[in-house]
């Protein structure tokens, strides 16, 4: 069965510092991996995805994520955090082998960027 773990309920970082939001996954085959963000009173917004190719993928708002197959991780990173990055971040996986198209999400990590 597919699963996603986001080990941190909350990540606190000062503005201007680098940030990392962790995600590990478990699937039966090679995964499709996604990051979504939810700002207050808004829906889920797509940030970035890993499908194939370069392990480092770049997405919206200066975010990037690195696919690490050996560690089954897909951590979200940003070199310099902004206060406006404060939001709820969800990692998700889709299994490309079984044919099931649903996304399996983690529990979410709240990012709080302080001025």
């Amino acid at each position, binding site marked *: 069965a597919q699963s996603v773990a986001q080990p941190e309920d909350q990540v606190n970082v000062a503005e201007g510092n680098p940030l990392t939001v962790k995600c590990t996954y478990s699937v039966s085959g090679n995964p499709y991996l996604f990051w979504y963000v939810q700002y207050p009173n808004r829906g889920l917004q797509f940030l970035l995805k890993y499908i194939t190719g370069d392990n480092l993928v770049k997405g919206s708002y200066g975010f990037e994520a690195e696919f690490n197959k050996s560690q089954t991780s897909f951590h979200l990173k940003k070199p310099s955090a902004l206060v406006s990055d404060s939001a709820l971040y969800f990692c998700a996986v889709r299994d490309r082998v079984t044919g099931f198209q*649903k996304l399996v999400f983690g*529990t979410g990590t709240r990012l709080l960027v302080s001025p």
Partner: protein
Amino acid sequence: EAGVTQFPSHSVIEKGQTVTLRCDPISGHDNLYWYRRVMGKEIKFLLHFVKESKQDESGMPNNRFLAERTGGTYSTLKVQPAELEDSGVYFCASSQEVVNTEAFFGQGTRLTVV
């Protein structure tokens, strides 16, 4: 281009009542999904439509939940009768292709059953 829209944004109902949530996907998107997030937990898949057909309904919690997608356009999710544990945020998403494209989500409907 309009995004995925959901209605209502909030709903408060009493236990035993019926509620119907609506989702309008992005025009031209054949794939439509329903997900639910219960307080503090992960977002869980409910079901997947391809046009008007249910492709995967493995996440539907029980027979109090009924989803329809008339004519392959908008979709409704009805909960009848609602129970306290049905409270949460219900998200709808749509996508044009399935395999390697991302799904676009609506703003969600916050359902509170009291």
